[in-house]
């Protein structure tokens, strides 16, 4: 607990200092320290920490690049000459060096990119946008090469950061991403990882929570642990971004130069859907036809717990549809991808 408080205080003071430091070397040093400090990174949920880092650099870059006439606390101390925007940015990027795991670099750069915002803002030069885009893409590629599929946290962080930044990146720079590495990572983070859908394991847990009350009525209480678990899932950062992650996956499927990873993704999709289907089928709730819901379910179930479940299922369905439609369009339009004996065949 004390560790958590220390870490939080560290992050807050770092946030203040970042924008006020005048020496670029100090900015770089602070960034390096933020990326490697054990006090910050030994916290249990690495995903929350990386999100915290994202928002930290987001706020910082927003303040640095704020329009001159808007009041920011940088103007409070006019005697200190605050760093010019571009110098500050370069200093931060210099601080992102090899001493810390590469997936953490992605957080910093994502924060910077989202803080600077879309391209048509007048305050920021085009060259800076391009610089950041390139830096981000390079960081993502390096992170993927370094961690691979085994490091669950790294995969989740890369996926999450990419979903936040993806719409800002220029299409030419997007092509430089290593799509073959990216697609399996994205898929695993969304559908198999414990921090998101976990192959639909929550459905089996829910089944235990549905109990039979008097006579024919079934109840799934909103106080039950399975419902709380579902609520946690719906609030999880990866699940909340499922829509944008599925769009990133759709883009990756269509942009891959060698469609080698496509076959694996399709089989992963099949594995996931089978798993999900089996678990849903074993769940008591699936045996109740929609027209019979009012007869068999309690009022609390109908108004509170069941709607959340349907919402979750619907999000999963839409995400799968987005991915599948791009797979289908790739299969139809690309001459190298054929389907033989029920499987994808890629001719070189």
């Amino acid at each position, binding site marked *: 607990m004390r560790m958590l408080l220390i870490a939080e205080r560290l992050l807050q003071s770092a946030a203040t200092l970042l924008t006020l430091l005048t020496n670029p070397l100090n900015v770089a040093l602070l960034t390096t320290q933020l990326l490697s400090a054990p006090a910050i990174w030994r916290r249990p949920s690495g995903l929350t920490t990386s999100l915290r880092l994202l928002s930290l650099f987001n706020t910082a870059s927003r303040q640095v690049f704020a329009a001159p006439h808007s009041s920011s606390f940088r103007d409070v101390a006019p005697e200190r000459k605050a760093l010019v925007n571009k110098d500050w940015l370069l200093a931060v990027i210099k601080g992102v060096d090899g001493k810390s795991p590469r997936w953490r670099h992605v957080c910093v750069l994502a924060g910077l990119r989202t803080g600077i915002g879309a391209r048509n803002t007048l305050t920021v030069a085009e060259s800076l946008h391009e610089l950041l885009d390139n830096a981000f893409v390079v960081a993502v590629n390096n992170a993927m090469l370094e961690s691979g599929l085994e490091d669950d946290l790294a995969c989740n962080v890369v996926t999450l950061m990419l979903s936040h930044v993806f719409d800002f990146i220029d299409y030419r720079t997007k092509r430089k991403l290593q799509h073959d590495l990216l697609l399996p990572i994205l898929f695993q983070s969304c559908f198999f990882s414990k921090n998101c859908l976990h192959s639909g394991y929550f459905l089996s847990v829910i089944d235990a929570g549905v109990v039979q009350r008097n006579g024919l009525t079934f109840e799934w209480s909103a106080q039950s642990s399975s419902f709380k678990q579902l609520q946690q899932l719906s609030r999880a950062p990866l699940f909340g971004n499922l829509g944008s992650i599925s769009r990133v996956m759709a883009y990756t499927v269509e942009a891959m130069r060698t469609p080698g990873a496509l076959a694996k993704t399709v089989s992963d999709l099949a594995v996931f859907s089978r798993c999900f*289907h089996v678990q*849903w*089928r074993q769940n008591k709730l*699936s*045996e*109740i*036809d*929609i*027209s*019979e819901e009012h007869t068999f379910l309690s009022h609390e179930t109908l108004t509170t717990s069941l709607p959340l479940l349907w919402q979750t299922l619907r999000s999963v369905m839409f995400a799968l549809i987005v991915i599948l439609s791009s797979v289908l369009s790739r299969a139809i339009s690309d001459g190298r991808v054929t*389907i033989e004996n*029920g499987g994808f065949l890629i001719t070189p």
Partner: protein
Amino acid sequence: MQAEAFLKDNRPRPEGQISQHPLDRGQHLFFFNTAEYLTVILSPSCCEFLLLPAVRPYLGIASDSRLSALFEAAHSVMLAVLSHPQNADLLSQHLHAYVDILFAVFPQNLSPRQFRFGIKTLVRATSPPAAIFDRQPLLPSTILELLYQRIATASEAETPCKSEERALSISASTSSQGEGSLSERSILVLSLIDSLPFLPLDQLEDNLPTTATALSSISDSIQAEVCRQRFRDVMSNGEMDVARSSLCLMWWGTLGGAQMVNSPLKGQNESQSVGSVVVSGRL
């Protein structure tokens, strides 16, 4: 073939029964909806041994609102299979049974529009230029004969019309006005009339007078007028091709067809027969 392999993998299990689990029923619905589109490329043996057994339990189900989507999908698959030219043998084998099923489920579970469409499709599938016509030229007449027999015993009560069908018939441009309030007999007569454009010429010639007689057996004059209007539409609005139109014209004018159609039965209200466009020589 891949389509056949796909359908074999996904066919409803258990065979020949309606599943109790809603999830399975959803999968069966997907199977039917997909199979409907694939009938064009499937072989006749695949249709016979894969699709028809899967569809059979759902064709005659009693009214169960949970199963209505499956019911309609099953009938669509059946019609798609039967109307495809390469399934001519299947058609001759199953036609009688299917028409019996149609009569059994109408009017409780099948809407008027669906019934008329079914009969029309079957008549079109058995008439030239379908290949089966060369081997069994009497099939269209057989269907119409079954209709006549049914008309003789059909009730004149208003059919229980589902509300969605009513909404659909209001918005559809080709349906006659007030279709939702027609009796069973009127709808059977309307199906007769719908089938006329597809009949071969000699059978058309035979069936025009008998259709007119059936029309005159409707006792409610408003409904009879609806049917008459439909009869006139079918003959004049281009649904019939050139040869059939000239035959109809001859029947209407020279052979007294107009008189047969427009003259009401003794029981009908004479003042209701307005709108007859041809000068009738009725007494």
